[in-house]
């Protein structure tokens, strides 16, 4: 048989089926789901700037970047879990448990601890709880949504029953000064300071690390493999347990960091904080192009999704929306963004 026809035919087959091979806008968007998120961000920015030109100032940018930090750390963790085909709703409880316990321990016994040690402790503590999630998911062979609903209740219950409920106004000195540390400072015309806090660096580093893990290590590839199909990945030799432990552990790791960053930047440790923000984070990640069904998600997209959600949450007063209308407007926007995203999925 002549092999050349076969090659041609196979090549035909491979190019015909995905018809949109032309370099059109539609094709670009299809290949790059985060482009949609970017588009939405630009739209919001333009709209708000039109309503209130005061929006265009460095100070607002600083505020928004700052507000992204904790949400961003959570979102990266959730994204990696989604990419591996799971879902995690316990991350906020992990963050709350680690940040509060660590603050309490440091305050009570080691008030002079260096911030690096505290961050490390947060990361390790969070990773530990995350690994427990991973072990349970792996051992119980149950959907991670169910498992993490269980551990969410468990972690929060443990925190509030056994660790404490009263918030600390006085946080360890190291955390306080970490929260105040600034990267850049900008004085507005009317004498207001706007600062870009150093806590943002944690998000930047975490993003770089996440990107590197996902794209440059075998583990990163394994995450997508398992997200693509758990059964197939297993039979191709991927160790599911390692992947489960890794993704949930890593999500926990980021949550632990997020908790410490949260305490440092709010400069108080409130055990009731953070829990309740789970769905917003998941919404941000999904708006960043990850899929609930697994196997997809990128660092860039996730950061854009976070930016989009933060933006919506932080421009309503600037845009002059009365406080009673704000919730409905945010909801409307999420639906709208979801609809735009759904258009992408249709051919």
């Amino acid at each position: 048989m002549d092999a050349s026809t076969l090659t041609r035919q196979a090549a035909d087959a491979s190019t015909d089926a995905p018809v949109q091979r032309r370099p059109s806008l539609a094709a670009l968007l299809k290949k790059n789901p985060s482009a949609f998120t970017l588009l939405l961000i630009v739209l919001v920015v333009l709209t708000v700037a039109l309503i209130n030109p005061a929006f265009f100032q460095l100070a607002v940018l600083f505020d928004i970047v700052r507000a992204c930090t904790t949400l961003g750390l959570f979102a990266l963790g959730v994204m990696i879990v989604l990419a591996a085909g799971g879902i995690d709703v316990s991350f906020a409880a992990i963050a709350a448990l680690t940040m509060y316990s660590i603050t309490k321990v440091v305050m009570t016994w080691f008030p002079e601890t260096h911030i690096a040690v505290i961050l490390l402790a947060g990361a390790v503590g969070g990773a530990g709880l995350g690994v427990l999630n991973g072990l349970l998911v792996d051992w119980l062979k149950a959907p991670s949504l169910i498992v993490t609903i269980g551990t969410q209740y468990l972690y929060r219950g443990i925190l509030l029953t056994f660790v404490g409920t009263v918030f600390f106004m006085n946080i360890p000195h190291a955390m306080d000064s970490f929260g105040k540390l600034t990267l850049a400072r900008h004085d507005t015309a009317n004498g207001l300071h706007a600062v870009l806090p150093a806590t943002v660096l944690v998000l930047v580093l975490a993003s770089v690390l996440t990107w590197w893990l996902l794209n440059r290590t075998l583990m990163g590839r394994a995450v997508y493999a398992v997200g693509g199909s758990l059964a197939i990945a297993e039979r191709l030799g991927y160790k599911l347990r390692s992947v489960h432990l890794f993704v949930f552990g890593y999500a926990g790791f980021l949550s632990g960091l997020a908790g410490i960053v949260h305490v440092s930047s709010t400069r108080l440790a409130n055990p009731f904080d953070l829990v309740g923000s789970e769905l917003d984070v998941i919404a941000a990640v999904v708006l960043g192009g990850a899929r609930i069904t697994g196997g997809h998600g990128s660092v860039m997209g996730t950061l854009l999704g976070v930016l989009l959600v933060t933006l919506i949450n932080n421009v309503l007063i600037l845009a002059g929306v009365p406080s009673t209308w704000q919730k409905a407007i945010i909801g409307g926007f999420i639906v709208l963004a979801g609809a735009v995203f759904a258009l992408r999925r249709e051919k």
Partner: protein
Amino acid sequence: MTSQTTSSVSAAPAQEFLRLQGIHKRFAGVHALRGVDLTIHAGEIYHLLGENGCGKSTLIKIIAGAQPPSEGEIYIQGQRVAELTPLASLSLGIETVYQDLSLLPNMSVAENVALSEQLVHHQGRLARLFDRHALNQTAARALRAVNLPADADFLDTRVDELPIATRQLIAIARAIATSARMVIMDEPTTSLTQKEVDALVKVINGLRANGVAVLFVSHKLDECFAIGGQAIVFRDGEKVAQGPIQQFTKAQLGQLMTGKQLSQERYRVDAQLHKPLMEVRALGRHGAFEDVSFALRQGEILGITGLLDSGRNELALALAGVEPARAGQITLEGQPLSLRNPGDAITHGIGYVPEDRISEGLFLDKSIRDNIVTTILRKLRGKFGALDAAACQRFSTDTVRQLQIATPDVDRPVQSLSGGNQQRVLIGRWLAINPRVLILHGPTVGVDVGSKDIIYRIIQDLAQRGLGVILISDDLPELLQNCDNLLLMKRGRIVRRYAVEGLAESELFHDLVSEQSQES
């Protein structure tokens, strides 16, 4: 790629690579393998033959480490392997093309083909760097070996954007991407065209020449004869025969596999074609098929064939209302139809048995009964609009009896049936609507000889009762054994029409693979 070191082995007397001893596999309630002894030598080709559900895939999964045996011992190169994990199996050089392909839909072609190499190289440890350059190189080499393009664009394409035939080739490419010692192929040719199969045969011969053992599973006996090697015949989880395949005749193999005599005869006899039933005029959907016209009479079995991407799939989907046509007209008994969705087709008595019974047909963990009555729920309504449970039970039990579906009761999940029985359940579902036209798309893909026989008899019986049957298939003997008339499609158009009676397979085959593209 196949390694240099093993190629020297082929000259020497064949070495034992793998030995299975007393392998049993029990699933809850099923004894799938019953004491299998098997030896695989390097540089030899083996054909694992047997009916659906006789345990072929199970055996393969055990060798590949995907499932542990319940009992029995595995020796590889003389060494006993206590626990064979997928990774261990891969490390020992056993590569598998699974029946379901086992490709990761969300990952790129390159990753699907070559990521395993790096995984195995690092012994499954994931805390290692990933080498994209090496990945692309390995992938490109393997893809070229199966005649797929290897440019950067194709390497980066996501697998779920590719047609099934290309995917099957990618799965094969994965198996030969690294220096395997043994390659297992579980029905690798189900969606390949003859040309692609021929190319695969070359690949297999290349492997053998390099001292690689090949374990090949196919229900298409002709392929097996063409490839040559050892035949291993399974029946009900036991090995019943082994020997050079050329020593057997097809009939013998069939008998060994089923335990009964099978006919090679034409099933279609005494055709009685009645008045015109369905007429399709200038049907088209841009980019899929154009200007398709044909007529179907009551009691007629009309075959449609063509290579992959010939538009026959799309035509079938249009007739079933799944992806409606944009141009042209369909009339049924003189009435023009508009088929916008499968519901419309059902209303007009057009039934469609889809090609991929797992993803398009069955509700695997639902009962056989639910799977059969799916299309006639409305008719089985009783009091208060509720489903009449007794009627459902009666109806599905009748169907099970008529179609000889092997199950003690209809409450079992349909996934507990073997392939051939599942297919019959699906056919039963469509017979339930009392169709005037029944479209069967690859009704015997992955179905063994015994089940095929039953399915063909059912088809004949339907035609006898005055239905119009459209049989879409690329199994030429199947078409020749069953049809009255036959349409050949290429590039979305009908290029030739045949009356099947007396048509020779060689002529049909020649037309199928020739470059001719205009209807003559």
